[in-house]
Protein backbone atom coordinates (compact mmCIF):
# COMPACT_ATOMS: atom_id res chain seq x y z
CA UNK A 1 0.00 0.00 0.00
CA UNK A 2 3.03 2.27 0.04
CA UNK A 3 3.94 2.28 -3.63
CA UNK A 4 3.07 6.00 -3.95
CA UNK A 5 5.46 8.01 -1.76
CA UNK A 6 4.07 10.58 0.63
CA UNK A 7 6.02 13.29 -1.19
CA UNK A 8 3.80 12.82 -4.25
CA UNK A 9 0.65 13.45 -2.20
CA UNK A 10 2.21 16.51 -0.55
CA UNK A 11 3.28 17.89 -3.93
CA UNK A 12 -0.26 17.42 -5.27
CA UNK A 13 -1.72 19.17 -2.25
CA UNK A 14 0.80 21.98 -2.80
CA UNK A 15 -0.32 22.48 -6.40
CA UNK A 16 -3.98 22.44 -5.38
CA UNK A 17 -3.27 24.98 -2.65
CA UNK A 18 -1.56 27.33 -5.12
CA UNK A 19 -4.50 26.99 -7.52
CA UNK A 20 -6.86 27.89 -4.69
CA UNK A 21 -4.74 30.91 -3.74
CA UNK A 22 -4.72 32.03 -7.38
CA UNK A 23 -8.49 31.72 -7.46
CA UNK A 24 -8.80 33.95 -4.39
CA UNK A 25 -6.56 36.56 -5.99
CA UNK A 26 -7.87 36.47 -9.56
CA UNK A 27 -11.61 36.22 -9.29
CA UNK A 28 -13.92 39.08 -8.42
CA UNK A 29 -17.03 36.98 -7.78
CA UNK A 30 -17.38 36.57 -4.00
CA UNK A 31 -18.85 33.05 -4.35
CA UNK A 32 -15.92 31.93 -6.51
CA UNK A 33 -13.45 33.37 -4.01
CA UNK A 34 -15.21 31.34 -1.40
CA UNK A 35 -15.00 28.16 -3.47
CA UNK A 36 -11.27 28.76 -3.90
CA UNK A 37 -10.90 28.99 -0.12
CA UNK A 38 -12.63 25.59 0.11
CA UNK A 39 -10.13 24.25 -2.43
CA UNK A 40 -7.24 25.48 -0.25
CA UNK A 41 -8.75 23.86 2.86
CA UNK A 42 -9.12 20.62 0.95
CA UNK A 43 -5.50 20.71 -0.20
CA UNK A 44 -4.41 21.12 3.43
CA UNK A 45 -6.61 18.15 4.36
CA UNK A 46 -4.91 16.02 1.71
CA UNK A 47 -1.48 16.82 3.17
CA UNK A 48 -2.73 16.02 6.68
CA UNK A 49 -4.09 12.63 5.65
CA UNK A 50 -0.89 11.83 3.73
CA UNK A 51 1.24 12.56 6.79
CA UNK A 52 -1.19 10.63 9.01
CA UNK A 53 -0.54 7.53 6.91
CA UNK A 54 3.20 8.11 6.88
CA UNK A 55 3.30 8.20 10.66
CA UNK A 56 0.64 5.55 11.19
CA UNK A 57 -1.08 8.04 13.48
CA UNK A 58 -4.84 8.47 13.52
CA UNK A 59 -4.68 12.00 14.98
CA UNK A 60 -4.07 13.49 11.53
CA UNK A 61 -7.34 12.07 10.26
CA UNK A 62 -9.20 13.31 13.32
CA UNK A 63 -7.81 16.79 12.70
CA UNK A 64 -9.13 16.59 9.13
CA UNK A 65 -12.52 15.76 10.58
CA UNK A 66 -12.42 18.95 12.67
CA UNK A 67 -11.25 21.03 9.71
CA UNK A 68 -14.24 19.74 7.73
CA UNK A 69 -16.65 20.67 10.52
CA UNK A 70 -15.23 24.17 10.84
CA UNK A 71 -15.32 24.54 7.05
CA UNK A 72 -19.02 23.64 7.06
CA UNK A 73 -19.76 26.33 9.69
CA UNK A 74 -17.63 28.82 7.76
CA UNK A 75 -19.49 28.11 4.50
CA UNK A 76 -22.85 28.65 6.19
CA UNK A 77 -21.82 32.01 7.66
CA UNK A 78 -20.01 33.13 4.51
CA UNK A 79 -22.92 32.38 2.21
CA UNK A 80 -25.28 34.17 4.60
CA UNK A 81 -22.97 37.20 4.43
CA UNK A 82 -22.98 37.04 0.64
CA UNK A 83 -26.79 36.89 0.59
CA UNK A 84 -26.98 39.86 2.99
CA UNK A 85 -24.51 41.88 0.91
CA UNK A 86 -26.37 41.03 -2.29
CA UNK A 87 -29.57 42.28 -0.72
CA UNK A 88 -27.97 45.65 0.04
CA UNK A 89 -25.81 46.13 -3.05
CA UNK A 90 -27.53 44.01 -5.72
CA UNK A 91 -24.04 42.69 -6.55
CA UNK A 92 -21.51 40.18 -5.24
CA UNK A 93 -18.65 41.63 -7.21
CA UNK A 94 -16.01 42.46 -4.63
CA UNK A 95 -14.95 45.56 -6.56
CA UNK A 96 -18.35 47.04 -5.78
CA UNK A 97 -17.76 46.65 -2.07
CA UNK A 98 -15.40 49.48 -1.34
CA UNK A 99 -16.78 51.16 1.73
CA UNK A 100 -13.55 50.38 3.55
CA UNK A 101 -11.44 51.92 0.83
CA UNK A 102 -9.26 54.67 2.29
Amino acid at each position, binding site marked *: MNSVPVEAFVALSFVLFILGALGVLLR*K*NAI*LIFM*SVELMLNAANLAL*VAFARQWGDLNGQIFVFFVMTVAA*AEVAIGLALIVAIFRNKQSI*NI*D*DLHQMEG
Partner: protein
Amino acid sequence: MGFELFLFLALGIVAIGSAALMIISKNSVHSAMFLILNFGCVALLFLMLDAPFISMVQIAVYAGAIMVLFLFVIMLLGAEQTTDTSRRFRWVTGAATILTASLLFALMIPVVLSGGIQLPEAPGKDPMVRVVHAANLPGPVNVVISGDAVEEDVVLSETTFGTISEFMALPAGDYTVTLALAANGAPLFNQSVTLAEDAVVTAIAYGEFSTEAQTLALGLVENSFAPTEDGAARTLVFNAYSETPLMLVDLGANRDLNVVEGVITDQVLVSELGLGSVSDAVVLDKGEYPLAFYRQDGAEFTRVLSVEGWSVEAAREQTVIIAPDYDAPEGADGYRPRVLDRNQEQLVVPTSETFGAPGDIGRSLFTDYLLPVNLVGFLLLVALVGVIVLTRPQGLTTVRRSTINRRRKVSRPLVSVIAQQTGSDVVVDTPKLEEPTSGD
Protein backbone atom coordinates in the same frame (compact mmCIF):
# COMPACT_ATOMS: atom_id res chain seq x y z
CA MET B 1 4.54 1.47 -13.26
CA GLY B 2 2.32 0.01 -10.61
CA PHE B 3 -1.42 0.21 -10.70
CA GLU B 4 -1.47 2.41 -7.63
CA LEU B 5 0.95 4.93 -9.11
CA PHE B 6 -1.10 5.01 -12.29
CA LEU B 7 -4.25 5.63 -10.24
CA PHE B 8 -2.53 8.41 -8.32
CA LEU B 9 -1.33 10.11 -11.49
CA ALA B 10 -4.76 9.88 -13.15
CA LEU B 11 -6.57 11.23 -10.08
CA GLY B 12 -3.95 13.96 -9.58
CA ILE B 13 -4.23 15.15 -13.19
CA VAL B 14 -8.04 15.21 -13.01
CA ALA B 15 -7.90 17.05 -9.65
CA ILE B 16 -5.48 19.72 -10.90
CA GLY B 17 -7.34 20.10 -14.19
CA SER B 18 -10.72 20.50 -12.54
CA ALA B 19 -9.27 23.02 -10.05
CA ALA B 20 -7.81 25.07 -12.91
CA LEU B 21 -11.08 24.91 -14.87
CA MET B 22 -12.96 26.00 -11.74
CA ILE B 23 -10.87 29.16 -11.58
CA ILE B 24 -11.14 30.11 -15.25
CA SER B 25 -14.81 29.23 -15.84
CA LYS B 26 -16.92 32.25 -16.69
CA ASN B 27 -20.09 30.60 -15.35
CA SER B 28 -20.29 30.13 -11.57
CA VAL B 29 -22.40 26.97 -11.90
CA HIS B 30 -19.70 25.37 -14.07
CA SER B 31 -17.13 26.37 -11.45
CA ALA B 32 -19.17 24.65 -8.74
CA MET B 33 -19.43 21.49 -10.87
CA PHE B 34 -15.67 21.42 -11.44
CA LEU B 35 -15.12 21.86 -7.71
CA ILE B 36 -17.38 18.84 -7.03
CA LEU B 37 -15.25 16.81 -9.48
CA ASN B 38 -12.13 17.97 -7.65
CA PHE B 39 -13.59 16.98 -4.27
CA GLY B 40 -14.48 13.56 -5.68
CA CYS B 41 -10.90 13.02 -6.84
CA VAL B 42 -9.55 14.06 -3.44
CA ALA B 43 -12.00 11.63 -1.78
CA LEU B 44 -10.55 8.79 -3.89
CA LEU B 45 -7.04 9.90 -2.92
CA PHE B 46 -8.14 9.69 0.74
CA LEU B 47 -9.21 6.09 0.05
CA MET B 48 -5.72 5.38 -1.30
CA LEU B 49 -4.29 6.86 1.91
CA ASP B 50 -6.08 4.36 4.22
CA ALA B 51 -8.71 6.91 5.27
CA PRO B 52 -12.06 5.37 4.26
CA PHE B 53 -14.08 7.28 6.86
CA ILE B 54 -12.63 10.68 5.93
CA SER B 55 -13.20 9.81 2.28
CA MET B 56 -16.90 9.12 2.82
CA VAL B 57 -17.28 12.28 4.94
CA GLN B 58 -15.59 14.20 2.14
CA ILE B 59 -18.15 12.96 -0.37
CA ALA B 60 -21.17 13.40 1.91
CA VAL B 61 -20.30 16.74 3.52
CA TYR B 62 -18.10 18.51 0.97
CA ALA B 63 -19.25 17.25 -2.40
CA GLY B 64 -22.80 16.82 -1.12
CA ALA B 65 -23.97 19.30 1.48
CA ILE B 66 -21.56 22.22 1.04
CA MET B 67 -21.66 22.25 -2.74
CA VAL B 68 -25.47 22.04 -2.76
CA LEU B 69 -25.41 25.12 -0.51
CA PHE B 70 -23.11 26.90 -2.97
CA LEU B 71 -25.25 26.01 -5.98
CA PHE B 72 -28.38 27.06 -4.11
CA VAL B 73 -26.94 30.49 -3.32
CA ILE B 74 -25.65 30.95 -6.88
CA MET B 75 -29.11 30.17 -8.26
CA LEU B 76 -30.87 32.25 -5.60
CA LEU B 77 -28.83 35.34 -6.37
CA GLY B 78 -28.84 34.75 -10.11
CA ALA B 79 -25.11 35.26 -10.09
CA GLU B 80 -24.17 32.68 -12.72
CA GLN B 81 -22.37 35.10 -14.99
CA THR B 82 -19.38 36.85 -13.58
CA THR B 83 -19.50 40.58 -13.95
CA ASP B 84 -16.04 42.01 -14.09
CA THR B 85 -17.24 45.58 -14.31
CA SER B 86 -14.31 47.59 -13.12
CA ARG B 87 -10.89 46.82 -14.51
CA ARG B 88 -9.15 49.61 -12.68
CA PHE B 89 -7.23 47.44 -10.19
CA ARG B 90 -6.39 44.65 -12.63
CA TRP B 91 -2.64 45.29 -12.53
CA VAL B 92 -2.67 45.09 -8.72
CA THR B 93 -4.23 41.63 -8.85
CA GLY B 94 -1.77 40.55 -11.50
CA ALA B 95 1.18 41.69 -9.44
CA ALA B 96 -0.20 40.07 -6.29
CA THR B 97 -0.76 36.81 -8.18
CA ILE B 98 2.79 36.69 -9.51
CA LEU B 99 4.21 37.59 -6.12
CA THR B 100 2.19 34.93 -4.27
CA ALA B 101 2.83 32.18 -6.80
CA SER B 102 6.58 32.88 -6.83
CA LEU B 103 6.65 32.97 -3.03
CA LEU B 104 4.90 29.60 -2.79
CA PHE B 105 7.22 28.08 -5.40
CA ALA B 106 10.19 29.53 -3.56
CA LEU B 107 9.01 27.62 -0.51
CA MET B 108 9.14 24.47 -2.64
CA ILE B 109 12.78 25.03 -3.77
CA PRO B 110 14.47 23.70 -0.60
CA VAL B 111 12.19 20.67 -0.71
CA VAL B 112 13.22 19.91 -4.30
CA LEU B 113 16.90 20.63 -3.66
CA SER B 114 17.07 18.33 -0.65
CA GLY B 115 15.60 15.52 -2.73
CA GLY B 116 12.16 15.20 -1.21
CA ILE B 117 10.77 15.57 2.24
CA GLN B 118 13.11 13.99 4.75
CA LEU B 119 10.68 12.02 6.82
CA PRO B 120 11.89 9.61 9.44
CA GLU B 121 10.67 6.09 9.16
CA ALA B 122 7.26 5.55 10.65
CA PRO B 123 7.81 4.56 14.30
CA GLY B 124 7.25 0.92 15.15
CA LYS B 125 4.56 -0.25 17.48
CA ASP B 126 5.31 -1.44 20.98
CA PRO B 127 6.03 -5.15 21.16
CA MET B 128 3.34 -7.42 22.56
CA VAL B 129 4.03 -10.37 24.78
CA ARG B 130 2.00 -13.05 26.47
CA VAL B 131 2.99 -15.86 28.76
CA VAL B 132 1.81 -19.47 28.62
CA HIS B 133 2.25 -21.79 31.57
CA ALA B 134 2.81 -25.31 30.25
CA ALA B 135 5.23 -26.61 32.86
CA ASN B 136 5.05 -29.05 35.74
CA LEU B 137 5.81 -26.98 38.82
CA PRO B 138 5.37 -27.64 42.54
CA GLY B 139 2.67 -25.02 42.84
CA PRO B 140 1.22 -21.81 41.45
CA VAL B 141 3.91 -19.38 40.31
CA ASN B 142 4.26 -15.65 39.87
CA VAL B 143 5.57 -14.70 36.45
CA VAL B 144 7.60 -11.49 36.74
CA ILE B 145 8.66 -9.54 33.65
CA SER B 146 11.26 -6.95 34.64
CA GLY B 147 13.49 -4.69 32.60
CA ASP B 148 14.95 -1.21 32.30
CA ALA B 149 12.24 -0.04 29.93
CA VAL B 150 9.43 -0.48 32.48
CA GLU B 151 9.37 1.28 35.82
CA GLU B 152 7.31 -1.35 37.59
CA ASP B 153 7.71 -5.04 36.99
CA VAL B 154 4.85 -6.79 35.26
CA VAL B 155 3.63 -9.57 37.55
CA LEU B 156 1.22 -12.33 36.65
CA SER B 157 0.44 -13.77 40.03
CA GLU B 158 -0.86 -17.23 40.99
CA THR B 159 -0.40 -18.70 37.53
CA THR B 160 -1.29 -22.34 37.23
CA PHE B 161 -0.76 -24.93 34.50
CA GLY B 162 -2.65 -24.18 31.31
CA THR B 163 -2.92 -20.44 31.86
CA ILE B 164 -2.53 -18.27 28.79
CA SER B 165 -2.24 -14.57 29.59
CA GLU B 166 -3.58 -11.73 27.45
CA PHE B 167 -1.20 -9.94 25.14
CA MET B 168 0.53 -7.12 27.01
CA ALA B 169 2.09 -4.15 25.24
CA LEU B 170 5.51 -3.32 26.63
CA PRO B 171 8.12 -0.81 25.45
CA ALA B 172 10.84 -2.35 23.33
CA GLY B 173 13.92 -3.40 25.25
CA ASP B 174 15.60 -6.18 27.17
CA TYR B 175 13.57 -8.01 29.78
CA THR B 176 14.04 -10.80 32.24
CA VAL B 177 11.26 -13.32 32.70
CA THR B 178 11.34 -14.90 36.15
CA LEU B 179 9.19 -17.71 37.45
CA ALA B 180 8.90 -17.71 41.24
CA LEU B 181 6.79 -19.85 43.52
CA ALA B 182 3.73 -17.94 44.65
CA ALA B 183 3.84 -19.56 48.09
CA ASN B 184 7.31 -18.49 49.24
CA GLY B 185 8.67 -16.41 46.36
CA ALA B 186 11.53 -18.78 45.66
CA PRO B 187 12.76 -18.15 42.10
CA LEU B 188 12.67 -21.29 39.96
CA PHE B 189 13.93 -20.04 36.66
CA ASN B 190 14.77 -16.91 34.76
CA GLN B 191 15.67 -16.07 31.19
CA SER B 192 16.41 -12.80 29.42
CA VAL B 193 14.25 -11.90 26.45
CA THR B 194 14.79 -9.10 23.95
CA LEU B 195 11.61 -7.53 22.62
CA ALA B 196 12.05 -5.59 19.37
CA GLU B 197 9.57 -3.09 17.97
CA ASP B 198 6.55 -4.55 16.16
CA ALA B 199 7.29 -7.99 17.62
CA VAL B 200 4.47 -10.16 18.93
CA VAL B 201 5.84 -12.88 21.17
CA THR B 202 4.31 -15.81 22.99
CA ALA B 203 6.60 -16.97 25.78
CA ILE B 204 5.90 -20.59 26.75
CA ALA B 205 7.27 -22.00 29.98
CA TYR B 206 7.54 -25.78 29.63
CA GLY B 207 9.35 -28.67 31.21
CA GLU B 208 9.48 -29.82 34.81
CA PHE B 209 10.84 -28.50 38.02
CA SER B 210 11.06 -31.07 40.76
CA THR B 211 13.73 -32.63 42.88
CA GLU B 212 14.61 -35.27 40.29
CA ALA B 213 14.17 -33.30 37.05
CA GLN B 214 14.89 -29.68 36.29
CA THR B 215 14.13 -29.25 32.63
CA LEU B 216 12.34 -25.94 32.89
CA ALA B 217 12.77 -23.80 29.76
CA LEU B 218 11.19 -20.86 28.03
CA GLY B 219 10.16 -21.20 24.38
CA LEU B 220 9.52 -18.10 22.32
CA VAL B 221 7.02 -18.07 19.45
CA GLU B 222 7.03 -15.12 17.07
CA ASN B 223 3.44 -14.30 16.27
CA SER B 224 2.28 -11.85 13.66
CA PHE B 225 -0.92 -9.88 13.20
CA ALA B 226 -0.29 -9.25 9.52
CA PRO B 227 -3.32 -10.17 7.41
CA THR B 228 -3.22 -13.34 5.35
CA GLU B 229 -4.21 -13.74 1.74
CA ASP B 230 -7.90 -14.51 1.12
CA GLY B 231 -8.61 -14.45 4.85
CA ALA B 232 -6.90 -17.79 5.46
CA ALA B 233 -5.85 -18.72 8.99
CA ARG B 234 -2.32 -19.24 10.18
CA THR B 235 -1.48 -21.94 12.66
CA LEU B 236 1.77 -22.26 14.59
CA VAL B 237 2.47 -25.47 16.48
CA PHE B 238 4.74 -25.59 19.51
CA ASN B 239 5.99 -28.88 20.88
CA ALA B 240 6.27 -28.90 24.66
CA TYR B 241 5.45 -32.59 24.91
CA SER B 242 7.81 -35.09 23.49
CA GLU B 243 11.52 -35.33 22.89
CA THR B 244 10.85 -37.48 19.84
CA PRO B 245 9.94 -35.26 16.89
CA LEU B 246 6.23 -34.82 16.36
CA MET B 247 4.26 -34.35 13.20
CA LEU B 248 0.80 -33.00 12.57
CA VAL B 249 -1.18 -34.77 9.88
CA ASP B 250 -4.47 -33.99 8.19
CA LEU B 251 -5.98 -37.49 8.27
CA GLY B 252 -8.55 -36.97 5.54
CA ALA B 253 -11.84 -38.77 5.13
CA ASN B 254 -10.89 -42.19 6.52
CA ARG B 255 -9.72 -40.77 9.87
CA ASP B 256 -6.56 -42.84 9.81
CA LEU B 257 -3.00 -42.53 8.69
CA ASN B 258 -2.45 -43.85 5.19
CA VAL B 259 1.03 -45.17 4.68
CA VAL B 260 2.02 -46.63 1.32
CA GLU B 261 5.45 -48.29 1.33
CA GLY B 262 6.68 -46.21 4.21
CA VAL B 263 5.50 -42.90 2.72
CA ILE B 264 2.57 -41.03 4.23
CA THR B 265 0.00 -40.17 1.60
CA ASP B 266 -2.04 -37.92 3.89
CA GLN B 267 -1.25 -34.23 4.00
CA VAL B 268 1.51 -33.63 6.55
CA LEU B 269 1.12 -30.12 7.92
CA VAL B 270 4.06 -30.14 10.32
CA SER B 271 6.90 -32.60 10.50
CA GLU B 272 10.11 -33.08 12.48
CA LEU B 273 8.96 -30.81 15.28
CA GLY B 274 11.45 -31.28 18.10
CA LEU B 275 10.96 -30.46 21.76
CA GLY B 276 10.79 -26.75 22.43
CA SER B 277 10.65 -25.79 18.78
CA VAL B 278 7.95 -24.08 16.82
CA SER B 279 6.72 -24.95 13.36
CA ASP B 280 6.50 -22.64 10.38
CA ALA B 281 3.10 -21.06 9.93
CA VAL B 282 0.62 -23.53 8.44
CA VAL B 283 -1.93 -21.74 6.28
CA LEU B 284 -5.37 -23.36 6.49
CA ASP B 285 -8.63 -22.23 4.97
CA LYS B 286 -11.70 -21.87 7.14
CA GLY B 287 -13.27 -25.21 7.98
CA GLU B 288 -12.99 -28.32 10.13
CA TYR B 289 -10.07 -30.68 9.87
CA PRO B 290 -9.47 -34.17 11.27
CA LEU B 291 -5.98 -33.69 12.62
CA ALA B 292 -3.71 -35.93 14.62
CA PHE B 293 -0.30 -35.64 16.22
CA TYR B 294 2.07 -38.52 15.51
CA ARG B 295 5.35 -39.38 17.11
CA GLN B 296 7.93 -39.72 14.39
CA ASP B 297 10.49 -42.33 15.24
CA GLY B 298 12.35 -43.28 12.10
CA ALA B 299 9.84 -45.03 9.86
CA GLU B 300 7.48 -45.75 12.75
CA PHE B 301 4.58 -43.49 13.43
CA THR B 302 2.66 -43.73 16.68
CA ARG B 303 -0.41 -41.67 17.26
CA VAL B 304 -0.06 -39.29 20.20
CA LEU B 305 -3.28 -37.34 20.08
CA SER B 306 -6.06 -37.03 17.58
CA VAL B 307 -8.38 -34.07 17.34
CA GLU B 308 -11.59 -34.71 15.49
CA GLY B 309 -13.16 -31.63 13.96
CA TRP B 310 -10.37 -29.17 14.49
CA SER B 311 -12.19 -25.96 13.59
CA VAL B 312 -10.31 -23.17 11.92
CA GLU B 313 -11.82 -19.72 11.68
CA ALA B 314 -11.12 -17.25 8.92
CA ALA B 315 -8.36 -14.65 9.19
CA ARG B 316 -7.00 -15.79 12.51
CA GLU B 317 -3.62 -16.62 13.84
CA GLN B 318 -3.58 -19.57 16.14
CA THR B 319 -0.79 -20.80 18.33
CA VAL B 320 -1.24 -24.44 19.26
CA ILE B 321 0.80 -25.82 22.14
CA ILE B 322 0.93 -29.55 22.70
CA ALA B 323 2.06 -30.24 26.26
CA PRO B 324 1.84 -33.04 28.83
CA ASP B 325 -1.33 -32.75 30.87
CA TYR B 326 0.13 -32.17 34.31
CA ASP B 327 -3.33 -31.66 35.79
CA ALA B 328 -4.23 -35.30 35.17
CA PRO B 329 -2.51 -38.09 37.15
CA GLU B 330 0.59 -39.57 35.62
CA GLY B 331 -0.01 -42.84 33.81
CA ALA B 332 2.29 -45.81 33.34
CA ASP B 333 3.92 -44.28 30.26
CA GLY B 334 4.08 -40.71 31.53
CA TYR B 335 1.60 -37.89 31.26
CA ARG B 336 -1.07 -37.89 28.60
CA PRO B 337 -0.74 -35.18 25.94
CA ARG B 338 -3.02 -32.21 25.82
CA VAL B 339 -3.49 -29.28 23.46
CA LEU B 340 -3.59 -26.11 25.51
CA ASP B 341 -6.74 -24.02 25.25
CA ARG B 342 -8.22 -25.36 22.10
CA ASN B 343 -11.34 -23.17 22.41
CA GLN B 344 -9.08 -20.56 20.79
CA GLU B 345 -10.52 -17.59 22.63
CA GLN B 346 -7.23 -16.32 23.88
CA LEU B 347 -4.98 -17.89 21.33
CA VAL B 348 -6.79 -16.54 18.35
CA VAL B 349 -6.12 -12.97 17.40
CA PRO B 350 -8.02 -11.35 14.55
CA THR B 351 -5.66 -10.13 11.87
CA SER B 352 -7.69 -7.29 10.42
CA GLU B 353 -6.29 -3.81 9.97
CA THR B 354 -8.55 -1.09 11.35
CA PHE B 355 -6.47 2.00 10.64
CA GLY B 356 -8.76 4.84 9.57
CA ALA B 357 -11.95 2.83 10.05
CA PRO B 358 -15.05 4.62 11.40
CA GLY B 359 -14.95 2.61 14.62
CA ASP B 360 -11.43 3.71 15.47
CA ILE B 361 -12.05 7.35 14.61
CA GLY B 362 -15.34 7.38 16.52
CA ARG B 363 -13.72 5.84 19.58
CA SER B 364 -10.94 8.41 19.46
CA LEU B 365 -13.39 11.28 18.97
CA PHE B 366 -15.48 10.32 21.96
CA THR B 367 -12.62 9.54 24.33
CA ASP B 368 -9.50 11.63 23.70
CA TYR B 369 -11.25 14.40 21.76
CA LEU B 370 -14.53 14.75 23.65
CA LEU B 371 -13.98 18.43 24.52
CA PRO B 372 -13.03 19.49 20.95
CA VAL B 373 -16.06 17.60 19.61
CA ASN B 374 -18.31 19.51 22.00
CA LEU B 375 -16.66 22.81 21.11
CA VAL B 376 -17.12 22.15 17.41
CA GLY B 377 -20.75 21.29 18.02
CA PHE B 378 -21.14 24.58 19.88
CA LEU B 379 -19.43 26.37 16.99
CA LEU B 380 -21.95 24.88 14.58
CA LEU B 381 -24.78 26.07 16.82
CA VAL B 382 -23.32 29.60 16.88
CA ALA B 383 -22.98 29.49 13.10
CA LEU B 384 -26.63 28.46 12.83
CA VAL B 385 -27.74 31.40 14.96
CA GLY B 386 -25.38 33.68 13.05
CA VAL B 387 -26.88 32.68 9.72
CA ILE B 388 -30.39 33.38 10.98
CA VAL B 389 -29.37 36.80 12.31
CA LEU B 390 -27.43 37.73 9.18
CA THR B 391 -30.19 36.88 6.75
CA ARG B 392 -32.99 38.65 8.64
CA PRO B 393 -34.37 41.51 6.57
CA GLN B 394 -33.73 44.06 9.29
CA GLY B 395 -30.18 42.87 9.89
CA LEU B 396 -28.62 43.12 13.31
CA THR B 397 -30.89 45.94 14.61
CA THR B 398 -33.54 44.75 16.98
CA VAL B 399 -36.96 46.28 16.38
CA ARG B 400 -39.20 46.33 19.40
CA ARG B 401 -42.78 45.66 18.61
CA SER B 402 -44.04 48.13 21.22
CA THR B 403 -42.35 51.06 19.51
CA ILE B 404 -43.90 50.11 16.19
CA ASN B 405 -47.32 50.01 17.77
CA ARG B 406 -46.80 53.33 19.49
CA ARG B 407 -45.70 54.94 16.26
CA ARG B 408 -48.77 53.81 14.49
CA LYS B 409 -51.01 55.67 16.90
CA VAL B 410 -49.35 59.00 16.27
CA SER B 411 -51.11 60.93 13.64
CA ARG B 412 -48.80 62.41 11.11
CA PRO B 413 -49.24 64.43 8.02
CA LEU B 414 -49.98 62.29 5.00
CA VAL B 415 -46.92 63.58 3.20
CA SER B 416 -44.50 62.23 5.80
CA VAL B 417 -46.26 58.84 5.84
CA ILE B 418 -45.93 58.56 2.08
CA ALA B 419 -42.33 59.68 2.35
CA GLN B 420 -41.60 56.91 4.86
CA GLN B 421 -43.32 54.24 2.80
CA THR B 422 -41.70 55.08 -0.50
CA GLY B 423 -38.34 55.86 1.03
CA SER B 424 -37.98 59.11 -0.85
CA ASP B 425 -38.95 62.62 -0.04
CA VAL B 426 -42.22 63.68 -1.47
CA VAL B 427 -41.59 66.84 -3.36
CA VAL B 428 -44.53 69.07 -3.08
CA ASP B 429 -44.59 71.63 -5.75
CA THR B 430 -46.35 74.65 -4.55
CA PRO B 431 -48.07 76.27 -7.49
CA LYS B 432 -46.66 79.60 -8.24
CA LEU B 433 -48.66 82.39 -9.58
CA GLU B 434 -47.54 83.66 -12.88
CA GLU B 435 -45.89 86.88 -12.40
CA PRO B 436 -47.91 89.48 -14.02
CA THR B 437 -46.25 91.07 -16.89
CA SER B 438 -45.87 94.63 -16.27
CA GLY B 439 -48.50 96.15 -18.39
CA ASP B 440 -48.34 99.69 -18.98
